[in-house]
């Protein structure tokens, strides 16, 4: 393919600011980080930092928790927001008020809501009050495996509306005649969703997935707001590990952890990308 010189030059001018910034604040640091992860002090140690990392109990705990969170929360959020989007889509017309209200949780700052979560989830909070009234035992949301459940609930609550908006936009793009012909063929509503809707909105699903991954890493902010620097072992995430290692400035270990985390995400993305390609009907 041939490029027009003038156009390519103009393009260069347009991306130059971003290119410089990205290079200085992302690419170069990354390279430094990778190099540092291979050294301790000034001696080259190869992959030793990585090997050491994988024998570090705290790191493994953080990795496990991050894995559990990703595997449960992302599909759950996907499912819930898709169902709500389908539900909203089933109305003939719907006031913008409802859509806006779904977006409110994304807009309201995390730190504003800490006390609300406390009132709801504390050992003597409203949720436990209700459970107790119904005859169940107290659930220790702040100091048991249920901490993870609480964080997942908050994550789904917070980003659900945003994903619903993305999904409704995708649903609006599905041509109506596909549904009609499916109905004429006698397809059940469940079949229509799985055979018509889902394949048609794959690009949207991919985008939602992307956003959910990005947001799943921001969950640290909730964890930090609710638990501080040292959450209990059930919600100790990789981000906690990285943050806490700043305090002892262990650069080699930090760098190795960063690289591992990056690879983890790129891998996740790659898997989904290949999956999407295989199943996409739009190409």
């Amino acid at each position: 393919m041939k490029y027009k010189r003038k156009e390519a030059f103009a393009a260069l001018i347009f991306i130059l600011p971003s290119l410089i910034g990205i290079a200085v604040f992302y690419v170069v640091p990354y390279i430094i980080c990778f190099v540092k992860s291979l050294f301790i002090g000034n001696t080259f140690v190869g992959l030793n930092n990585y090997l050491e990392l994988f024998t570090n109990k705290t790191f493994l705990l953080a990795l496990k928790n991050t894995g559990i969170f990703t595997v449960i929360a992302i599909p759950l959020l996907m499912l819930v927001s898709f169902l709500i989007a389908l539900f909203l889509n089933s109305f003939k017309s719907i006031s913008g008020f409802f859509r806006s209200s779904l977006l409110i949780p994304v807009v309201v700052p995390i730190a504003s809501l800490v006390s609300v979560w406390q009132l709801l989830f504390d050992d003597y909070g409203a949720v436990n009050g209700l459970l107790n009234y119904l005859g169940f035992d107290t659930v220790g949301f702040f100091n048991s495996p249920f901490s993870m459940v609480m964080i997942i609930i908050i994550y789904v609550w917070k980003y659900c509306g945003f994903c619903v908006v993305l999904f409704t936009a995708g649903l609006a793009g599905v041509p109506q005649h596909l549904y009609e012909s499916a109905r004429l063929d006698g397809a059940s509503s469940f079949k229509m969703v799985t055979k018509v809707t889902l394949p048609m909105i794959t690009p949207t699903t991919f985008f939602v997935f992307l956003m959910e991954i990005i947001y799943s890493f921001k969950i640290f902010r909730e964890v930090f707001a609710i638990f501080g620097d040292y959450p209990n072992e059930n919600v100790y995430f990789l981000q906690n590990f990285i943050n806490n290692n700043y305090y002892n400035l262990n650069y080699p270990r930090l760098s190795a952890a960063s690289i591992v985390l990056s690879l983890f995400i790129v891998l996740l993305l790659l898997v989904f990308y290949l999956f999407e390609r295989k199943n996409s009907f739009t190409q």
Partner: protein
Amino acid sequence: MKKTKLIFKYILLILIVLVFLFPMVYMLAGSFMPQSQVTTMLDFTNEEYKNIELIPEKASGEQYYQVFFRRPEYLEKFWNSVVMTFPTVIGQTVVSALAAFAFAKLNFPFRDKLFFVYIILLILPLQVTLVPNYMVLENLNLLNNFLAVILPGTFSAFGICLLRQSIKYIPDSSIEAARIDGAGYFRIFTRIILPQIKGGLVTLVLLTFIDNWNIVEQPLIYFEDEGMYPLSVTLGDIGNSDFGIVFACGVMFMVVPLLIFAYGQKDIDSPFISTDK
């Protein structure tokens, strides 16, 4: 029969909306409670189950009075948040719009490969880039400076990906027509592209704003002086020390993004609506 079904659907709809709105309403109601009521509400040591109290015992501006006139440190933190957030949002919008135009509409060598690099950078979580960034900022002598937060935020790849999507929907023909009329690329950018991606720009401003307004990690690591921390960092702690004013502080903190949202919301989902594909 059809009518009952519809009624059930509306009840469900209202329930869903309530779930999403409830915490905000709670904050708002709480902020008008007198401090004594809030203190008992948030005191979990007396081993009594809490009810959800939405009605203030008596409407009181006590908390707001404390925050605005008696406790200047919270306003200072609020101002830190403003100083860090606004330049980042403006910077990112400008840088992203320029680059997004090139990525969406101009042909140049390595375009798609370069964009792929951007996508990867977009996915990488903040915590990963924090470490490398720290090293660079140290070398640039920017630690303990608000720029340490502002500059990396400005160059985030997120805006480029988002705006590229909106610019793609603009038909090529309108750009070619302008080219034939002799318009330069910058003129095309300001006259044809920008007016048509208002929805994308508003969405970007809002999302970047929220993201930076909620910033937690960077200040903790880049600033030694706690006086430079934004309100988002301090509010997490306030529950332990000052819970008498926690609701008012929370409301003060959420008002700004809510206002931006209210102002821009009619434009917001247009970049996602892709019916003309």
